[in-house]
């Protein structure tokens, strides 16, 4: 069966790029980087950890008969023991001879002021303060009914709901907040990588002098569509692989660390991200292709691309604006403006209920710009394909005779 030529280009683009060492390195670099960061974090915590016990002087016996904090399952560093001392001089002696790493003095007016004095040395671990805090809370509430003690220890499970009841999220549901930020960052990385592949592919057609062979076999429109879609899939493959790594990491993390969260995947959020990212991807890829066709060599194309991708990441610079004023003029404007919308719209949606008309308008504008970008890139490609060492000017693309050299 004869295959559609766009499909042939698409398949060739995809197969060519996913087999490149650069792509495989790119796919593995992100999870390896995350693993490395986790390891560095773990090692730095481990280096700061001191397993030696701490001492305390509870002059007014506010904790009563003390109990050690029970060991939690899968705790990488067990909490240090807290040893009672009758007076400060004996605790100071123990600190001097190294049998404890620090001691805490609950002052006379602890209940009124909450004041606790910590006496430390250079050898005191970063964990001492935290572990004693847990020990203090545990003993202050130990005589309460278990359910009440648990609530006092854990605090309220706060649910935040919008006035119209359309949005609801747990206050500690950081995944919902982090998701659009993370997705935005991954989008920028993926779009840059696959956009650059597309740019390279177009420049390579010029460098390899294959343009004439190609355009006498296939229309520039079919060629560009195949290249854009092929590289879109390259980018999506990269995102999908990272997503799989993230799922695996989230599954593995609780088996190693006692993290307590149950990320709730919001289907509407995922849908919104997909609806903005796909046309944005096509738009960026088409512009990258056009840049490749206008540029005279790969280095020049790379320089132009750098300037082009900056507007896309602008919303990330205004994180605080989106968090604290998601319905302000700047947030709304950035979520509607097609170049900033791919990141701004899902980002804003994480903090507020975006009116439906704004979502529809934003995605429509994105789709229109993506279609325009494809049209323009096809036109520029036709003009620039046989120009070696001479740049295509934008006004030529819009001229009446811009469809053909």
């Amino acid at each position, binding site marked *: 069966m004869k295959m559609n030529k766009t499909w042939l280009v698409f398949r060739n683009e995809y197969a060519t790029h996913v087999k490149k060492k650069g792509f495989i390195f790119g796919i593995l670099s992100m999870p390896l980087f995350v693993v490395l960061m986790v390891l560095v974090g773990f090692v730095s915590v481990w280096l700061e950890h001191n397993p030696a016990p701490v001492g305390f002087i509870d002059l007014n016996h506010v904790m009563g008969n003390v109990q050690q904090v029970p060991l939690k399952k899968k705790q990488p560093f067990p909490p240090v023991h807290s040893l009672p001392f009758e007076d400060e001089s004996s605790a100071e002696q123990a600190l001097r001879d190294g049998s404890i790493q620090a001691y805490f003095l609950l002052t006379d007016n602890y209940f009124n002021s909450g004041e606790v004095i910590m006496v430390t040395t250079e050898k005191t671990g970063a964990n001492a303060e935290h572990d004693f805090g847990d020990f203090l809370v545990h003993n202050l509430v130990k005589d309460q009914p278990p359910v009440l003690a648990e609530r006092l220890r854990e605090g309220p499970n706060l649910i935040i709901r919008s006035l119209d009841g359309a949005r609801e999220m747990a206050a500690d549901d950081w995944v919902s907040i982090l998701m659009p930020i993370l997705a935005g960052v991954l989008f920028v990385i993926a779009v840059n990588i696959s956009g650059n592949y597309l740019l390279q592919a177009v420049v390579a057609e010029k460098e390899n002098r294959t343009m*004439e062979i190609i*355009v006498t076999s296939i229309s520039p429109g079919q060629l560009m569509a195949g290249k854009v879609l092929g590289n879109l899939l390259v980018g999506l493959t990269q995102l999908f692989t990272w997503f799989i790594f993230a799922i695996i990491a989230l599954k593995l993390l609780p088996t190693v660390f006692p993290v307590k969260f149950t990320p709730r995947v919001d289907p509407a959020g995922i849908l919104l991200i997909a609806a903005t990212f796909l046309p944005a991807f096509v738009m960026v890829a088409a512009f990258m292709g056009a840049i490749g066709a206008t540029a005279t060599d790969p280095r020049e194309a790379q320089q132009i691309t750098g300037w082009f991708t900056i507007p896309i990441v602008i919303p990330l610079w205004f994180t605080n604006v989106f968090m604290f004023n998601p319905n302000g003029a700047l947030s709304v404007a950035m979520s509607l403006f097609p170049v900033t919308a791919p990141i701004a719209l899902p980002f804003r949606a994480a903090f507020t209920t975006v009116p439906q008309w704004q979502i529809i308008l934003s995605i429509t504008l994105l789709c229109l710009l993506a279609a325009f970008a494809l049209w323009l890139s096809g036109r520029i490609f036709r003009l620039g394909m046989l120009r070696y060492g001479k740049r295509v000017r934008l006004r030529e693309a819009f001229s009446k005779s811009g469809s*053909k050299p």
Partner: protein
Amino acid sequence: MPNIIVDRISKTFGNLQAVKNVSFEVNPGEIFGLLGPNGAGKTTSIRIMLDIFKADSGTVSILGGAMTEEKKNRIGYLPEERGLYQDIQLERCLVYLATLKGLEESEARGRINDYLEKFDLADARKKKVKELSKGMQQKAQLITTLVHKPEVVIIDEPFSALDPVNTQMVKDLLKEERHRGTTIVMCTHQMHQVEELADRIALINAGETVLYGGLTEIRRRFASDGVLVRAVNSLPSAIPGVQEIRPHNSSTLLKLENGKTPQEVLNTLIHQGIILEHFEIALPSLDEIFIQVVNHESE
């Protein structure tokens, strides 16, 4: 009906008129030589024929009408700017380009294998294109031009970078294609190749057609009044009706006096008892015609 009709095409780039009212026709099953000095407008004319460039005026009919996407599969093109994907294996590159010409992948593989064997490239099929010599890449490029059995083949300088053995192989291949009924437009500077292969030619100079027609007819048109002879015994120093006698390669050129015909000179030589091995009307080489026409045009 001609397979290609180029009718008064013109093209200007900025201030440069690259092609000016160029017209010619190419018949089915003939090899047509498109000749001209550097910058004459040959490549621009070819690009207009193939719809890569748009003519400012004039029309091109190819395979019965204007160029369409469907017709691209029926045309083979070897551009002057040779190009193959350098970073992929030769076989994959050829299969990809063949499928873009409408061949099924399995069929493309089969035909490419045959061509690789024929062109002595079978051992290079798994090599990256950039690892091949210039001559090997040239042969590979020729495979992409012919693999889909096109009805029209347009080739720009097909013999560049080829050694004599491969040049002969390409010539044989073009003759085979002509025999198969393929219409071939050959654009080259190598006049002796054109003389050997082309049926008809068009000579373009400074964007204009300055010579057009059958090869033999053109040579006759430019023939000087002379004959080439080779005799067993030596020629006399003076021959009636001959104004000049001078050696020409392994023969002797007899320049005839005005009004004298080759037949009369032949009779004279026979009457003088000269035993002839060879007698032919001296026709100019295409090189000589080319230089003569181009020089005349530039004066």
